[in-house]
């Protein structure tokens, strides 16, 4: 009788630890992201299948003055990229002053070239890889000691988590600051997937952005006083080209 009790207790303990460890299987990586003129803190929460990458919530460069251009308005969650491999979902969440929208995209087909170059940061060993995606050349450093197909923004598809990501033209530079384990699934995922004003495709989003930038550039150039001329370079969006992705990664 007592041995049965003992057995039950042990079983409960084992199953409890099993269950709870499964709840805490999420990993959090904190990055510093510089994209164009905006430098922000970013976080990637992931497990084997799902992940969210939060960025664009609060820019680190504060230029509050009377003549500041209100350029980047977002809400408390900010911009997010949600990935779900089993459901084949890749969503981008963008919040502006007027609406929250979700942009539906296909997983990119990244043909990475993995080099033999490695470097060490703390006890982690990183390997360098490069590819080209939507008009830019990317260099990524991944760590196969964390064998997850993921990384900042829409990147992934390497035999380890991407800890550093940058574009060769200097537009994007993301580097990691901290990794910690044993997190639970973030509750904000539910809000991201369910609270939004409209959902559009990546193609529609590209068109809308193009219109916005053209108007803004023309407007700024036309407002200058006499004897002042400027040339505005368009590099406002990370993805410069867009082609329909037929093949899905994985």
């Amino acid at each position, binding site marked *: 009788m007592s041995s049965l009790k003992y057995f039950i207790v042990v079983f409960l303990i084992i199953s409890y630890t099993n269950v709870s460890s499964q709840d805490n299987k999420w*990993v959090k990586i904190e990055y510093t992201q510089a994209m164009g003129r905006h*430098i922000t803190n970013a976080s990637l929460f992931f497990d084997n299948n799902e992940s969210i990458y939060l960025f664009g919530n609060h820019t680190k460069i504060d230029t509050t003055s009377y003549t500041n251009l209100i350029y980047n308005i977002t809400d408390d969650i900010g911009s997010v990229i949600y990935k779900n491999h089993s459901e084949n979902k890749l969503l981008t969440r963008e919040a502006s002053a007027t609406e929250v929208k979700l942009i539906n995209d296909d997983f990119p087909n990244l043909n990475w070239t993995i080099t033999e170059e490695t470097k060490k940061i703390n006890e982690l060993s990183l390997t360098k890889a490069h590819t080209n995606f939507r008009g830019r050349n990317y260099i990524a450093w991944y760590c196969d000691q964390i064998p997850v*197909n993921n990384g900042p923004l829409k990147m992934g598809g390497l*035999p380890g988590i991407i800890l550093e990501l940058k574009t060769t033209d200097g537009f994007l*530079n993301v580097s990691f600051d901290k990794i910690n384990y044993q997190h639970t699934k973030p509750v904000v995922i539910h809000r991201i997937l369910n609270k939004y004003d409209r959902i559009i495709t990546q193609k529609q989003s590209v068109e809308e952005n193009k219109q916005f930038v*053209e108007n803004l550039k*023309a*407007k700024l150039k036309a*407002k200058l006083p*006499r004897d002042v001329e400027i040339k505005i370079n368009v590099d406002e969006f990370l993805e410069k080209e867009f082609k329909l992705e037929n093949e899905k990664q994985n």
Partner: protein
Amino acid sequence: MLIKSLLILKYNHFIVLFILLASKYLVAQTTVSGTIKDENNQPISFANIILKPENSQSVVAFAYSDNSGNFLLKTTKKGKFLLHFTGLSYKTTTVPIEIIDEKQQIVQNAVLNYQPVALKEVIVNAERPITIKKDTIVFNAHSFAIGNEQVVEDLLRRIPGLNVSNDGTIKVGNQEVEKVMIDGDDFFEKGYKLLTKNMPAHSIDKVELLQRYSNNKHLKGIENSDKVALNLKLKEEAKRQWFGNFSAAHDLVSEKRYELKSNLMNFGKKNKYYFLANLNNVGKDAIGDINQLIRPFRWNEPASIGDNQNAFNLLDLGTYVPNLKQKRVLFNNAELLSLNAIFTLSEKVKMKTLGFFNWDENDFYRNSFQSFIVRNTSFENTEDFILRKKKITGFGKIDFTYDISKTKTIEYTGKFNSTNEENRSDLTFNGDLLNEKQKSNNQLFDQKLVITNKFKDNKVILLTGRYINEKTPQNYSVNQFLFSDLFTENANNTVQTSENKMQFVGFDAHLMNKKTNGSLFEFQMGNQYRTDDLISDFQLKENEAIISQPLGYQNKISYHVNDIYLNTKYRYKFKKYTFFSQLDLHQLYNQLETMENKQTQLPFFVNPKVGIVWEINKTNKLSTSYSYNTTNASILEVHNQYILTGFRSFSKGTGTFNQTDASTILLNYSLGSWGQKFFATAFLMYNKNHDFFSTNSTISQNYSQSEKIIIKDRESITFSSNIDRYFKSVSTNLKITLDATKSNYKNSVNNAHLREVKSNSINYGLELRSGFKGVFNYHIGSKWNFNEIKTSSTHSFTNNMSFLDLFFIFSDKLDIKFQTERYFFGSLDRNNNTYNFLDLEARYTVKENKLTFSLSGNNLFNTTTFKNYSISDISISKSEYRILPRHLLLKMEYRF
């Protein structure tokens, strides 16, 4: 039968050929597939499978398992490999695999055992590309440089968050940087382009972006600052090298017009040198470029006591030309040489030296016709004025900074200036030729000591001491005698020697306390003592002999003003409102010593100021303020005998003390922000002078004498507004401006009663500017100016200035700009009331920031003279000025 078999043969061949060809293009691949499961026989999805050679870490192929735990790897390689199975929370399993055949199909399953993540939390301590520390963001230059950067400007373009415009202006967001420092040292303040466009990029280790920047490092976080600055840190082993640029321009057409400029720099970690030379005769005032080194423009900053004190020039042979760009009317021949250095004597002590020499010759031409209409008197004067100015300036400044501790700093600044001016003029006045000779000297000796002590994190005290000694001796002689109506003597020339000696001693203690709720409390007290000695000798001469020194025209006066003051300032922010208030208390001691008597006065006054800023919402902002100011008379308003201030004008002060009071109300409203489609601002100011200095003048053909008098009540109201509206369909911005000022005051002329003078002016303008993406862009505008002065009669005029600019940007290397202006004067006669100018600027960049050629054409219509029409309460004048003739310069800029 034969044909059929032939056809079948052909068909078979074709198939065989096809198969043979096809097999050639079929890739020979080995596939490795399988299923991964865990200990409980559950499939593991999204586990990692990597194929690496037996004794190498390079990745040959990799794949992920799908939802059902299946995976598929493909490779064309052969040999001995290791297949690694890894997954988050699983122990890695490695299986050796040998690929012998190119078309193998290997099946390899795996079972992975659960293993809790063994890796501890990782916090990176290595150097990051971007490090954020409160208000400072540090960028590691190496992480952002591509390798082809030549100059610092190229490197700064790669730093995220920095916006470098086409002409090199560096902005963070919409805010221009205050300065670009090298290891904390700065030469140029807002003239930083001289540095960023010339200094080589390879010696930069880090770029620091400093937000909420304060010029005095101890004031950071205490004073409300929204300034931004950059600090470039040099690599330790950066070899010191000389670098700089050189540009030469010469007139292509006829006249010998030229411009030579050179900058030479050498920046090391310990010592930094900067040399500058500028020689030109194209109307460019080179001192403008280094003015920020001499008198750094720090408006309203703490420890600026004495910045507003300077001696007076009693007589100035005026070379003022309204309305036109200076480069059109400045006939000059200037040479400027400047030497600057910063020495880091030790970790705590820094010394900065600045010196320059400037030789300048200016020619000035003016013809004018003045109609005086005053009550019952009216007459006309014609002047034909040619002036030659020769000016030599020598200036030196030395600056010592000693950091006593992390929170205490002592700074000493010493300035010395000596200017020698010799002016000669040929003046044909109403048909008579007279020559003026003026010798002017300015000697300045200025010392300042500032001790800053940040005794708490949010409290700072600044102690300032300042001593200024400035002299302006002048000698002025005219070889004709115009004052036979004033003096009975039989003179034929006049001489005046004058000098204003000024000494200033000031002490100031300023406490700043930043409260936790963000409000700022300031308390300031001090003592300022200024003494002016004014001497003027006016002599009537017959040839060389002095025949008279008339009474009433000699000054020997000492004016001492001592001001003990106390100021408190409070600035408080609550939700959308910001309140600010200020109270100034002054106890003055005035003493006036003349040859006859000595007067003293002890006035006390209180000057309050209050204001509110209300940010109604993100697009609407309203601010208003009220202030009451008392101003104590200066030496020019106090001396009691006449001084000659021009070849036919005398002026004198009241002979006694005076304080004038004024109340000012300001109202400011802005709608929208600069980047929005619609943006408007409106500004209203009402000013009432409760008493003010006016004049009692005697005007006659050959002379005018004005005496300062105190009058009560003068009012003025000014309104100004701007509207910007952007039209998307035509990519054009419309700008409308409107300014109106109405003021009235009183004065007296020719011993009549006080009369009222009403002055109104209205300016309105319209501008259209395009924002096209392509090669071409335009900017067109027109501005009208209406002026009216009413006394017993009314005079008015309407002028117009219109412009059209055309821009062509053919490529990154070539761009051309045309600028045309048209000036119209409503009250001049039809033949002389319109003036047109055309300028052209073409730039060709051979190599960006290395070699550039430009062609600059100025005044291509060759307009030789410019007439101007203006009115005052006693006269109407039409003046004609000579313009720099057409010149076409070919300029080459080279960086080494």
